Protein backbone atom coordinates (compact mmCIF):
# COMPACT_ATOMS: atom_id res chain seq x y z
CA UNK A 1 0.00 0.00 0.00
CA UNK A 2 1.40 3.43 -0.89
CA UNK A 3 2.22 5.69 2.04
CA UNK A 4 -0.10 8.48 0.89
CA UNK A 5 -3.55 8.36 -0.65
CA UNK A 6 -5.31 11.15 -2.56
CA UNK A 7 -8.54 12.74 -1.35
CA UNK A 8 -10.40 14.22 -4.29
CA UNK A 9 -13.38 16.53 -4.66
CA UNK A 10 -14.92 18.15 -7.72
CA UNK A 11 -16.49 21.40 -8.79
CA UNK A 12 -18.28 20.76 -12.05
CA UNK A 13 -19.53 23.61 -14.24
CA UNK A 14 -22.43 22.79 -16.52
CA UNK A 15 -23.65 25.17 -19.22
CA UNK A 16 -27.43 24.88 -19.29
CA UNK A 17 -29.17 24.39 -22.63
CA UNK A 18 -31.50 27.36 -22.33
CA UNK A 19 -32.13 29.45 -25.45
CA UNK A 20 -31.03 32.67 -23.76
CA UNK A 21 -28.53 33.87 -21.19
CA UNK A 22 -29.28 33.87 -17.47
CA UNK A 23 -29.89 37.62 -17.04
CA UNK A 24 -30.67 38.89 -20.56
CA UNK A 25 -32.30 37.79 -23.81
CA UNK A 26 -29.10 37.21 -25.82
CA UNK A 27 -28.82 33.83 -27.51
CA UNK A 28 -26.52 31.15 -26.05
CA UNK A 29 -25.92 29.45 -29.41
CA UNK A 30 -22.38 28.11 -29.74
CA UNK A 31 -20.08 29.20 -32.55
CA UNK A 32 -21.49 32.62 -33.48
CA UNK A 33 -19.05 35.32 -34.73
CA UNK A 34 -17.33 37.14 -31.80
CA UNK A 35 -19.33 39.72 -29.86
CA UNK A 36 -22.60 39.32 -31.79
CA UNK A 37 -24.61 37.74 -28.98
CA UNK A 38 -24.12 40.57 -26.51
CA UNK A 39 -26.20 43.43 -25.13
CA UNK A 40 -25.75 46.18 -22.54
CA UNK A 41 -26.61 43.74 -19.71
CA UNK A 42 -24.02 41.05 -20.50
CA UNK A 43 -21.47 43.67 -21.56
CA UNK A 44 -21.69 45.14 -18.06
CA UNK A 45 -22.74 48.64 -19.17
CA UNK A 46 -23.53 51.06 -16.35
CA UNK A 47 -27.12 51.32 -15.24
CA UNK A 48 -28.47 48.10 -16.72
CA UNK A 49 -30.56 45.64 -14.72
CA UNK A 50 -30.39 41.86 -14.88
CA UNK A 51 -33.63 39.83 -14.98
CA UNK A 52 -33.48 36.11 -14.20
CA UNK A 53 -34.33 33.53 -16.86
CA UNK A 54 -37.06 31.32 -15.32
CA UNK A 55 -35.95 28.31 -17.35
CA UNK A 56 -32.41 28.50 -15.91
CA UNK A 57 -33.86 28.39 -12.39
CA UNK A 58 -36.04 25.41 -13.31
CA UNK A 59 -33.06 23.56 -14.79
CA UNK A 60 -31.11 24.21 -11.59
CA UNK A 61 -34.02 22.92 -9.48
CA UNK A 62 -34.16 19.84 -11.72
CA UNK A 63 -30.42 19.28 -11.23
CA UNK A 64 -30.69 19.71 -7.46
CA UNK A 65 -33.59 17.22 -7.28
CA UNK A 66 -31.73 14.68 -9.45
CA UNK A 67 -28.76 14.98 -7.07
CA UNK A 68 -30.98 14.41 -4.03
CA UNK A 69 -30.37 17.90 -2.65
CA UNK A 70 -32.57 19.84 -0.32
CA UNK A 71 -34.08 22.81 -2.16
CA UNK A 72 -33.53 26.19 -0.51
CA UNK A 73 -36.91 27.87 -0.12
CA UNK A 74 -35.58 31.41 -0.47
CA UNK A 75 -32.52 31.44 -2.70
CA UNK A 76 -30.51 34.57 -3.59
CA UNK A 77 -27.76 35.83 -5.86
CA UNK A 78 -24.48 37.33 -4.68
CA UNK A 79 -21.67 39.22 -6.33
CA UNK A 80 -18.25 37.60 -6.45
CA UNK A 81 -15.79 40.42 -7.05
CA UNK A 82 -12.60 40.06 -9.02
CA UNK A 83 -10.87 41.77 -11.94
CA UNK A 84 -10.34 39.82 -15.10
CA UNK A 85 -10.96 40.94 -18.68
CA UNK A 86 -13.37 38.09 -19.45
CA UNK A 87 -15.66 39.43 -16.74
CA UNK A 88 -16.99 42.80 -17.94
CA UNK A 89 -18.76 43.80 -14.71
CA UNK A 90 -15.72 43.03 -12.55
CA UNK A 91 -17.96 40.73 -10.59
CA UNK A 92 -19.60 37.44 -11.36
CA UNK A 93 -23.19 36.93 -10.27
CA UNK A 94 -23.19 33.65 -8.35
CA UNK A 95 -24.74 32.18 -5.23
CA UNK A 96 -22.73 32.15 -2.02
CA UNK A 97 -25.03 32.64 0.96
CA UNK A 98 -28.12 30.68 -0.09
CA UNK A 99 -27.30 28.14 -2.79
CA UNK A 100 -30.32 26.70 -4.56
CA UNK A 101 -29.62 23.10 -3.57
CA UNK A 102 -27.68 21.71 -0.59
CA UNK A 103 -26.62 18.42 1.02
CA UNK A 104 -27.31 15.94 -1.74
CA UNK A 105 -25.68 12.75 -2.94
CA UNK A 106 -25.15 10.63 -6.00
CA UNK A 107 -24.30 6.94 -6.22
CA UNK A 108 -21.47 5.96 -8.53
CA UNK A 109 -20.57 2.49 -9.76
CA UNK A 110 -16.84 1.83 -9.51
CA UNK A 111 -16.09 -1.42 -11.32
CA UNK A 112 -19.19 -3.08 -9.87
CA UNK A 113 -19.06 -1.54 -6.38
CA UNK A 114 -21.55 1.21 -5.57
CA UNK A 115 -20.20 4.21 -3.71
CA UNK A 116 -22.14 7.23 -2.46
CA UNK A 117 -20.59 10.66 -3.12
CA UNK A 118 -21.96 13.57 -1.10
CA UNK A 119 -22.88 16.77 -2.89
CA UNK A 120 -22.19 19.91 -0.86
CA UNK A 121 -24.30 22.22 -3.00
CA UNK A 122 -25.73 23.01 -6.40
CA UNK A 123 -25.87 26.66 -7.39
CA UNK A 124 -26.54 28.98 -10.32
CA UNK A 125 -24.12 31.48 -11.78
CA UNK A 126 -23.16 33.19 -15.01
CA UNK A 127 -20.36 32.09 -17.31
CA UNK A 128 -17.51 34.46 -18.23
CA UNK A 129 -16.45 35.45 -21.74
CA UNK A 130 -13.64 33.93 -23.72
CA UNK A 131 -10.07 35.24 -23.93
CA UNK A 132 -8.18 34.69 -27.16
CA UNK A 133 -4.44 34.97 -27.09
CA UNK A 134 -2.92 36.05 -30.39
CA UNK A 135 -0.42 33.60 -31.77
CA UNK A 136 2.00 36.36 -32.70
CA UNK A 137 5.16 35.75 -30.66
CA UNK A 138 5.65 38.43 -28.07
CA UNK A 139 2.16 39.89 -28.50
CA UNK A 140 1.39 41.97 -25.45
CA UNK A 141 -2.40 41.94 -25.73
CA UNK A 142 -5.38 39.59 -25.55
CA UNK A 143 -8.70 39.63 -27.37
CA UNK A 144 -12.04 39.25 -25.61
CA UNK A 145 -15.20 37.65 -27.03
CA UNK A 146 -18.13 38.15 -24.68
CA UNK A 147 -20.69 35.90 -26.46
CA UNK A 148 -20.36 33.37 -23.66
CA UNK A 149 -20.55 35.94 -20.86
CA UNK A 150 -23.84 35.43 -19.04
CA UNK A 151 -24.52 31.88 -20.23
CA UNK A 152 -26.28 30.12 -17.35
CA UNK A 153 -24.11 27.70 -15.41
CA UNK A 154 -24.97 25.22 -12.75
CA UNK A 155 -22.05 24.47 -10.48
CA UNK A 156 -22.08 21.13 -8.68
CA UNK A 157 -19.77 21.03 -5.68
CA UNK A 158 -18.96 17.62 -4.22
CA UNK A 159 -17.49 16.73 -0.85
CA UNK A 160 -13.95 15.27 -1.04
CA UNK A 161 -15.29 11.71 -1.14
CA UNK A 162 -13.25 10.27 -3.99
CA UNK A 163 -10.05 8.33 -3.38
CA UNK A 164 -8.86 7.03 -6.74
CA UNK A 165 -8.71 8.00 -10.40
CA UNK A 166 -11.25 5.22 -11.12
CA UNK A 167 -13.68 6.78 -8.65
CA UNK A 168 -13.09 10.22 -10.13
CA UNK A 169 -13.81 8.91 -13.62
CA UNK A 170 -16.95 7.11 -12.44
CA UNK A 171 -18.13 10.32 -10.75
CA UNK A 172 -17.59 12.44 -13.88
CA UNK A 173 -19.33 9.87 -16.09
CA UNK A 174 -22.24 9.49 -13.68
CA UNK A 175 -22.78 13.25 -13.55
CA UNK A 176 -22.59 13.59 -17.34
CA UNK A 177 -25.10 10.78 -17.85
CA UNK A 178 -27.42 12.19 -15.21
CA UNK A 179 -27.31 15.69 -16.73
CA UNK A 180 -28.08 14.22 -20.14
CA UNK A 181 -30.93 12.22 -18.62
CA UNK A 182 -32.58 15.29 -17.10
CA UNK A 183 -32.03 17.28 -20.30
CA UNK A 184 -30.50 20.38 -18.72
CA UNK A 185 -27.32 20.34 -20.83
CA UNK A 186 -26.01 18.62 -23.92
CA UNK A 187 -22.70 18.21 -22.01
CA UNK A 188 -20.60 18.62 -25.17
CA UNK A 189 -17.15 18.83 -23.65
CA UNK A 190 -15.52 19.86 -26.93
CA UNK A 191 -17.70 23.00 -26.75
CA UNK A 192 -16.88 23.58 -23.09
CA UNK A 193 -20.41 22.75 -21.93
CA UNK A 194 -19.05 20.59 -19.12
CA UNK A 195 -15.89 21.66 -17.28
CA UNK A 196 -14.13 20.28 -14.25
CA UNK A 197 -12.18 21.71 -11.34
CA UNK A 198 -10.48 19.24 -9.07
CA UNK A 199 -9.38 19.72 -5.49
CA UNK A 200 -6.92 17.22 -4.21
CA UNK A 201 -4.98 16.63 -1.03
CA UNK A 202 -2.94 13.73 0.26
CA UNK A 203 -3.19 12.00 3.60
CA UNK A 204 -1.37 9.12 5.23
CA UNK A 205 -3.07 5.97 3.93
CA UNK A 206 -5.96 5.10 6.21
CA UNK A 207 -5.67 8.26 8.32
CA UNK A 208 -8.72 10.43 8.96
CA UNK A 209 -6.97 13.79 8.98
CA UNK A 210 -6.95 15.58 5.63
CA UNK A 211 -3.85 17.19 4.17
CA UNK A 212 -3.55 20.63 2.57
CA UNK A 213 -5.81 21.04 -0.43
CA UNK A 214 -4.76 22.22 -3.89
CA UNK A 215 -7.32 23.30 -6.49
CA UNK A 216 -6.75 22.82 -10.20
CA UNK A 217 -8.78 24.78 -12.72
CA UNK A 218 -9.09 24.65 -16.46
CA UNK A 219 -9.91 20.97 -17.04
CA UNK A 220 -11.97 20.58 -20.18
CA UNK A 221 -12.24 16.82 -20.51
CA UNK A 222 -12.37 13.75 -18.32
CA UNK A 223 -9.08 12.58 -19.78
CA UNK A 224 -7.41 15.85 -18.76
CA UNK A 225 -8.92 15.65 -15.27
CA UNK A 226 -7.51 12.15 -14.82
CA UNK A 227 -4.06 13.15 -16.08
CA UNK A 228 -4.12 16.08 -13.70
CA UNK A 229 -5.09 13.90 -10.72
CA UNK A 230 -2.22 11.54 -11.56
CA UNK A 231 0.29 14.36 -11.89
CA UNK A 232 -0.84 16.22 -8.78
CA UNK A 233 -0.77 13.04 -6.67
CA UNK A 234 2.82 12.40 -7.74
CA UNK A 235 3.84 16.03 -7.21
CA UNK A 236 2.40 16.21 -3.70
CA UNK A 237 3.79 12.78 -2.78
CA UNK A 238 7.28 13.89 -3.81
CA UNK A 239 6.93 17.07 -1.72
CA UNK A 240 5.81 15.19 1.38
CA UNK A 241 8.46 12.51 0.99
CA UNK A 242 11.13 15.21 0.88
CA UNK A 243 9.69 16.54 4.13
CA UNK A 244 8.33 19.68 2.43
CA UNK A 245 4.90 21.20 2.75
CA UNK A 246 2.05 21.37 0.27
CA UNK A 247 0.86 24.97 -0.17
CA UNK A 248 -2.83 25.68 -0.26
CA UNK A 249 -3.15 27.26 -3.70
CA UNK A 250 -4.89 27.26 -7.03
CA UNK A 251 -2.97 25.70 -9.87
CA UNK A 252 -3.59 25.56 -13.58
CA UNK A 253 -3.32 22.54 -15.84
CA UNK A 254 -0.76 23.10 -18.58
CA UNK A 255 -1.84 20.70 -21.32
CA UNK A 256 1.28 21.10 -23.46
CA UNK A 257 3.65 20.18 -20.62
CA UNK A 258 1.18 17.83 -18.85
CA UNK A 259 1.90 19.47 -15.49
CA UNK A 260 0.07 21.74 -13.07
CA UNK A 261 1.49 25.21 -12.53
CA UNK A 262 1.03 27.61 -9.66
CA UNK A 263 -0.84 30.84 -10.39
CA UNK A 264 0.88 33.98 -9.21
CA UNK A 265 -0.37 34.40 -5.69
CA UNK A 266 -1.04 38.14 -6.05
CA UNK A 267 -3.52 37.54 -8.83
CA UNK A 268 -5.54 34.95 -7.03
CA UNK A 269 -5.80 36.41 -3.55
CA UNK A 270 -9.08 34.73 -2.59
CA UNK A 271 -10.77 37.86 -1.49
CA UNK A 272 -13.97 37.88 -3.47
CA UNK A 273 -15.90 40.11 -1.05
CA UNK A 274 -19.20 38.36 -1.72
CA UNK A 275 -22.26 40.43 -1.01
CA UNK A 276 -25.96 40.09 -1.97
CA UNK A 277 -26.66 41.50 -5.43
CA UNK A 278 -28.93 44.48 -4.87
CA UNK A 279 -30.22 44.27 -8.47
CA UNK A 280 -31.69 40.79 -8.05
CA UNK A 281 -34.53 39.97 -5.69
CA UNK A 282 -34.79 36.64 -3.93
CA UNK A 283 -36.28 33.58 -5.57
CA UNK A 284 -39.02 31.86 -3.62
CA UNK A 285 -39.20 28.19 -4.57
CA UNK A 286 -42.58 27.10 -3.25
CA UNK A 287 -43.42 23.47 -2.55
CA UNK A 288 -45.83 23.60 -5.48
CA UNK A 289 -43.13 24.79 -7.88
CA UNK A 290 -40.76 22.12 -6.64
CA UNK A 291 -43.43 19.43 -7.04
CA UNK A 292 -44.23 20.66 -10.51
CA UNK A 293 -40.57 20.38 -11.56
CA UNK A 294 -40.34 16.96 -9.93
CA UNK A 295 -43.47 15.78 -11.75
CA UNK A 296 -42.04 16.79 -15.10
CA UNK A 297 -38.61 15.33 -14.42
CA UNK A 298 -37.60 12.97 -17.24
CA UNK A 299 -37.14 9.36 -16.14
CA UNK A 300 -33.92 9.03 -14.13
CA UNK A 301 -31.39 6.19 -14.52
CA UNK A 302 -32.54 4.33 -11.38
CA UNK A 303 -36.19 4.43 -12.43
CA UNK A 304 -35.32 3.41 -15.95
CA UNK A 305 -33.26 0.51 -14.63
CA UNK A 306 -36.17 -0.71 -12.49
CA UNK A 307 -38.49 -0.40 -15.46
CA UNK A 308 -36.11 -2.34 -17.73
CA UNK A 309 -36.06 -5.15 -15.15
CA UNK A 310 -39.86 -5.18 -14.87
CA UNK A 311 -40.85 -4.48 -18.47
CA UNK A 312 -38.19 -6.45 -20.37
CA UNK A 313 -37.54 -9.07 -17.71
CA UNK A 314 -33.81 -8.28 -17.80
CA UNK A 315 -31.30 -9.24 -15.11
CA UNK A 316 -30.13 -6.38 -12.87
CA UNK A 317 -26.70 -6.53 -14.54
CA UNK A 318 -28.11 -5.98 -18.03
CA UNK A 319 -30.43 -3.20 -16.90
CA UNK A 320 -27.61 -1.36 -15.15
CA UNK A 321 -25.34 -1.51 -18.19
CA UNK A 322 -28.05 -0.49 -20.65
CA UNK A 323 -29.27 2.49 -18.59
CA UNK A 324 -25.85 3.91 -17.68
CA UNK A 325 -26.18 6.26 -20.63
CA UNK A 326 -29.45 7.70 -21.86
CA UNK A 327 -28.50 7.40 -25.51
CA UNK A 328 -27.65 3.70 -25.10
CA UNK A 329 -30.95 3.11 -23.26
CA UNK A 330 -32.87 4.82 -26.06
CA UNK A 331 -31.09 2.70 -28.68
CA UNK A 332 -32.01 -0.44 -26.75
CA UNK A 333 -35.65 0.55 -26.36
CA UNK A 334 -36.02 1.19 -30.07
CA UNK A 335 -34.51 -2.22 -30.88
CA UNK A 336 -36.66 -3.96 -28.28
CA UNK A 337 -39.75 -2.31 -29.72
CA UNK A 338 -38.90 -3.59 -33.20
CA UNK A 339 -38.54 -7.26 -32.23
CA UNK A 340 -39.87 -8.99 -29.17
CA UNK A 341 -36.83 -10.72 -27.68
CA UNK A 342 -35.52 -8.23 -25.12
CA UNK A 343 -32.93 -10.54 -23.54
CA UNK A 344 -31.33 -11.53 -26.86
CA UNK A 345 -31.21 -7.88 -27.92
CA UNK A 346 -29.69 -7.00 -24.56
CA UNK A 347 -26.97 -9.62 -25.12
CA UNK A 348 -26.14 -8.15 -28.51
CA UNK A 349 -26.08 -4.67 -27.03
CA UNK A 350 -23.77 -5.59 -24.14
CA UNK A 351 -21.31 -7.51 -26.27
CA UNK A 352 -21.28 -6.28 -29.85
CA UNK A 353 -22.86 -2.81 -29.85
CA UNK A 354 -21.18 -1.39 -26.74
CA UNK A 355 -17.83 -2.78 -27.88
CA UNK A 356 -18.15 -1.10 -31.28
CA UNK A 357 -19.14 2.21 -29.64
CA UNK A 358 -16.21 2.02 -27.28
CA UNK A 359 -13.68 1.09 -29.94
CA UNK A 360 -14.84 3.83 -32.28
CA UNK A 361 -15.46 6.32 -29.46
CA UNK A 362 -18.85 7.35 -30.87
CA UNK A 363 -22.36 7.90 -29.53
CA UNK A 364 -25.20 5.51 -30.47
CA UNK A 365 -26.71 8.20 -32.70
CA UNK A 366 -23.61 8.05 -34.90
CA UNK A 367 -23.55 4.25 -35.10
CA UNK A 368 -24.29 3.17 -38.72
CA UNK A 369 -26.38 0.15 -37.67
CA UNK A 370 -29.71 1.51 -36.47
CA UNK A 371 -31.61 -0.15 -33.59
CA UNK A 372 -34.17 -1.56 -36.04
CA UNK A 373 -31.31 -3.22 -37.93
CA UNK A 374 -30.04 -4.87 -34.76
CA UNK A 375 -33.59 -6.08 -34.07
CA UNK A 376 -33.76 -7.51 -37.61
CA UNK A 377 -30.57 -9.53 -37.00
CA UNK A 378 -31.95 -11.02 -33.78
CA UNK A 379 -35.25 -11.73 -35.50
CA UNK A 380 -33.49 -13.64 -38.29
CA UNK A 381 -31.73 -15.79 -35.67
CA UNK A 382 -35.00 -16.40 -33.83
CA UNK A 383 -36.69 -17.44 -37.09
CA UNK A 384 -33.78 -19.80 -37.84
CA UNK A 385 -33.04 -17.89 -41.04
CA UNK A 386 -29.41 -17.34 -40.05
CA UNK A 387 -27.11 -18.97 -37.51
CA UNK A 388 -25.52 -17.11 -34.64
CA UNK A 389 -22.19 -17.25 -36.41
CA UNK A 390 -23.52 -15.81 -39.66
CA UNK A 391 -25.32 -13.17 -37.57
CA UNK A 392 -21.96 -11.97 -36.23
CA UNK A 393 -20.69 -11.51 -39.79
CA UNK A 394 -23.86 -9.70 -40.82
CA UNK A 395 -23.55 -7.47 -37.76
CA UNK A 396 -19.93 -6.62 -38.55
CA UNK A 397 -20.85 -5.69 -42.13
CA UNK A 398 -23.91 -3.66 -41.15
CA UNK A 399 -21.97 -1.93 -38.37
CA UNK A 400 -19.39 -0.80 -40.91
CA UNK A 401 -21.65 0.19 -43.79
CA UNK A 402 -25.06 0.78 -42.28
CA UNK A 403 -26.51 -1.59 -44.88
CA UNK A 404 -29.80 -3.28 -44.06
CA UNK A 405 -29.03 -6.68 -42.44
CA UNK A 406 -31.86 -8.44 -44.30
CA UNK A 407 -30.50 -7.13 -47.57
CA UNK A 408 -26.98 -8.32 -46.66
CA UNK A 409 -28.29 -11.84 -45.95
CA UNK A 410 -30.18 -11.99 -49.25
CA UNK A 411 -27.49 -10.42 -51.39
CA UNK A 412 -24.76 -12.68 -50.06
CA UNK A 413 -26.81 -15.89 -49.90
CA UNK A 414 -26.40 -16.34 -46.15
CA UNK A 415 -29.80 -17.82 -45.42
CA UNK A 416 -29.56 -20.83 -43.17
CA UNK A 417 -30.00 -24.25 -44.76
CA UNK A 418 -32.71 -26.27 -43.03
CA UNK A 419 -33.22 -28.67 -45.92
CA UNK A 420 -32.42 -32.07 -44.38
CA UNK A 421 -31.37 -33.51 -47.75
CA UNK A 422 -28.68 -30.90 -48.27
CA UNK A 423 -27.39 -31.20 -44.72
CA UNK A 424 -27.30 -35.02 -44.96
CA UNK A 425 -24.97 -34.66 -47.93
CA UNK A 426 -22.45 -32.60 -45.85
CA UNK A 427 -22.78 -35.02 -42.93
CA UNK A 428 -22.04 -38.02 -45.11
CA UNK A 429 -19.08 -36.28 -46.73
CA UNK A 430 -17.59 -35.39 -43.35
CA UNK A 431 -18.01 -38.96 -42.07
CA UNK A 432 -16.36 -40.37 -45.17
CA UNK A 433 -13.42 -37.95 -44.94
CA UNK A 434 -12.73 -38.39 -41.22
CA UNK A 435 -12.84 -42.11 -40.33
CA UNK A 436 -10.48 -41.65 -37.35
CA UNK A 437 -12.71 -38.99 -35.84
CA UNK A 438 -15.75 -41.18 -36.33
CA UNK A 439 -13.94 -43.98 -34.49
CA UNK A 440 -13.23 -41.69 -31.55
CA UNK A 441 -16.85 -40.56 -31.40
CA UNK A 442 -17.89 -44.20 -31.35
CA UNK A 443 -15.49 -44.68 -28.42
CA UNK A 444 -17.49 -42.02 -26.58
CA UNK A 445 -15.40 -38.86 -27.06
CA UNK A 446 -17.91 -36.01 -27.00
CA UNK A 447 -15.23 -33.44 -27.80
CA UNK A 448 -14.55 -35.13 -31.12
CA UNK A 449 -18.29 -35.14 -31.83
CA UNK A 450 -18.28 -31.36 -31.56
CA UNK A 451 -15.20 -31.15 -33.76
CA UNK A 452 -17.01 -33.21 -36.38
CA UNK A 453 -20.03 -30.87 -36.17
CA UNK A 454 -17.55 -28.09 -36.81
CA UNK A 455 -16.30 -29.84 -39.95
CA UNK A 456 -19.84 -30.12 -41.26
CA UNK A 457 -20.61 -26.44 -40.47
CA UNK A 458 -17.47 -25.50 -42.35
CA UNK A 459 -18.62 -27.46 -45.40
CA UNK A 460 -21.89 -25.52 -45.31
CA UNK A 461 -19.94 -22.29 -44.93
CA UNK A 462 -21.77 -21.68 -41.67
CA UNK A 463 -25.19 -21.91 -43.21
CA UNK A 464 -26.34 -25.33 -41.95
CA UNK A 465 -28.78 -25.29 -39.08
CA UNK A 466 -26.60 -26.49 -36.16
CA UNK A 467 -29.45 -28.30 -34.37
CA UNK A 468 -30.21 -30.32 -37.50
CA UNK A 469 -26.53 -31.10 -38.01
CA UNK A 470 -26.32 -32.42 -34.44
CA UNK A 471 -29.42 -34.52 -34.89
CA UNK A 472 -28.37 -36.04 -38.20
CA UNK A 473 -24.82 -36.75 -37.07
CA UNK A 474 -26.12 -38.53 -33.96
CA UNK A 475 -28.38 -40.69 -36.08
CA UNK A 476 -25.47 -41.58 -38.42
CA UNK A 477 -23.07 -42.58 -35.65
CA UNK A 478 -25.05 -44.55 -33.14
Amino acid at each position, binding site marked *: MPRYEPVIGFEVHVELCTNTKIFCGCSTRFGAPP*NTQVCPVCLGMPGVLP*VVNRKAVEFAIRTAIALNCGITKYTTFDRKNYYYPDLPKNYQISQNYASLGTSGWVDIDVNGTVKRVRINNVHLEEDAGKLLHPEIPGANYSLVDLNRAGTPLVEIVSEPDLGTADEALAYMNTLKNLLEYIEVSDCKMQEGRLRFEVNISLRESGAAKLGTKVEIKNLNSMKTALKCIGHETRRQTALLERGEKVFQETRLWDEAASVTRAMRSKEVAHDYRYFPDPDLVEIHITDEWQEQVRAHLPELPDAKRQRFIAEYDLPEYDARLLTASKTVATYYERAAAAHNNPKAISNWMMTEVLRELRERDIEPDDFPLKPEGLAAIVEMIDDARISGKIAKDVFAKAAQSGRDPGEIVNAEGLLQVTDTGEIEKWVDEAIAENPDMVAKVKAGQTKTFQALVGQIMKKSRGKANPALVNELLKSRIP
Partner: protein
Amino acid sequence: MNGISPELVRHVALLSRLELSEGETCRFGDDLANILDYVAKLNELDTSSIPPTSHSFKMSNVFREDVVQPSLTNPEALANAPDAENDCFKVPAVIQEL
Protein backbone atom coordinates in the same frame (compact mmCIF):
# COMPACT_ATOMS: atom_id res chain seq x y z
CA MET B 1 -10.73 53.53 16.92
CA ASN B 2 -10.12 50.81 14.32
CA GLY B 3 -6.49 50.47 13.34
CA ILE B 4 -6.00 50.07 9.58
CA SER B 5 -2.47 48.95 8.84
CA PRO B 6 -0.61 50.11 5.71
CA GLU B 7 -0.57 46.42 4.60
CA LEU B 8 -4.36 46.29 4.71
CA VAL B 9 -4.64 49.55 2.75
CA ARG B 10 -2.26 48.17 0.11
CA HIS B 11 -4.30 44.94 -0.07
CA VAL B 12 -7.57 46.83 -0.56
CA ALA B 13 -5.87 49.03 -3.14
CA LEU B 14 -4.67 45.97 -5.03
CA LEU B 15 -8.18 44.48 -5.03
CA SER B 16 -9.45 47.76 -6.49
CA ARG B 17 -6.53 48.01 -8.93
CA LEU B 18 -5.48 51.37 -7.42
CA GLU B 19 -1.92 52.57 -7.25
CA LEU B 20 -1.25 54.56 -4.06
CA SER B 21 1.76 56.61 -3.05
CA GLU B 22 3.23 56.25 0.45
CA GLY B 23 1.47 59.42 1.55
CA GLU B 24 -1.86 58.25 0.18
CA THR B 25 -1.49 54.87 1.83
CA CYS B 26 -1.07 56.64 5.16
CA ARG B 27 -3.95 59.06 4.61
CA PHE B 28 -6.40 56.38 3.39
CA GLY B 29 -5.53 54.29 6.43
CA ASP B 30 -6.84 57.08 8.66
CA ASP B 31 -9.85 57.74 6.39
CA LEU B 32 -10.87 54.10 6.31
CA ALA B 33 -10.51 53.86 10.09
CA ASN B 34 -12.80 56.87 10.52
CA ILE B 35 -15.39 55.39 8.18
CA LEU B 36 -15.39 52.08 10.02
CA ASP B 37 -15.74 53.85 13.34
CA TYR B 38 -18.69 55.78 12.02
CA VAL B 39 -20.45 52.67 10.71
CA ALA B 40 -19.61 50.83 13.93
CA LYS B 41 -22.16 53.05 15.70
CA LEU B 42 -24.78 50.65 14.24
CA ASN B 43 -23.35 47.90 16.42
CA GLU B 44 -24.83 49.70 19.41
CA LEU B 45 -28.29 48.61 18.25
CA ASP B 46 -29.58 45.23 19.36
CA THR B 47 -30.43 43.41 16.12
CA SER B 48 -30.41 39.90 17.52
CA SER B 49 -34.09 39.38 16.72
CA ILE B 50 -33.97 40.86 13.22
CA PRO B 51 -33.07 38.65 10.23
CA PRO B 52 -30.37 39.99 7.88
CA THR B 53 -31.87 42.05 5.08
CA SER B 54 -30.25 42.73 1.72
CA HIS B 55 -33.10 44.55 0.00
CA SER B 56 -35.13 47.45 1.28
CA PHE B 57 -38.44 46.08 0.02
CA LYS B 58 -39.89 42.58 0.04
CA MET B 59 -40.21 41.27 -3.48
CA SER B 60 -39.52 37.90 -5.06
CA ASN B 61 -39.62 35.90 -8.30
CA VAL B 62 -39.02 38.52 -10.94
CA PHE B 63 -38.39 36.46 -14.06
CA ARG B 64 -38.16 36.68 -17.81
CA GLU B 65 -39.17 33.87 -20.16
CA ASP B 66 -36.49 32.04 -22.14
CA VAL B 67 -37.11 33.87 -25.43
CA VAL B 68 -34.28 35.28 -27.54
CA GLN B 69 -34.24 39.06 -27.92
CA PRO B 70 -32.18 40.96 -30.50
CA SER B 71 -28.55 41.54 -29.50
CA LEU B 72 -26.33 44.46 -30.42
CA THR B 73 -24.44 44.31 -33.69
CA ASN B 74 -20.70 43.77 -33.44
CA PRO B 75 -19.85 47.43 -34.33
CA GLU B 76 -22.37 48.62 -31.73
CA ALA B 77 -20.90 46.31 -29.09
CA LEU B 78 -17.37 47.56 -29.78
CA ALA B 79 -18.32 51.24 -30.21
CA ASN B 80 -17.09 52.29 -26.77
CA ALA B 81 -14.08 49.98 -26.61
CA PRO B 82 -10.78 51.83 -26.23
CA ASP B 83 -9.25 49.33 -28.64
CA ALA B 84 -10.53 46.47 -30.81
CA GLU B 85 -9.17 43.87 -33.20
CA ASN B 86 -10.77 41.00 -35.16
CA ASP B 87 -14.26 41.89 -33.87
CA CYS B 88 -12.97 41.51 -30.29
CA PHE B 89 -12.20 43.83 -27.40
CA LYS B 90 -8.44 44.34 -27.23
CA VAL B 91 -6.98 44.34 -23.72
CA PRO B 92 -3.50 44.23 -22.18
CA ALA B 93 -2.01 40.71 -22.20
CA VAL B 94 -3.28 38.49 -19.43
CA ILE B 95 -1.79 35.18 -20.45
CA GLN B 96 0.88 35.33 -17.75
CA GLU B 97 -1.66 36.00 -15.08
CA LEU B 98 -4.08 33.28 -16.22
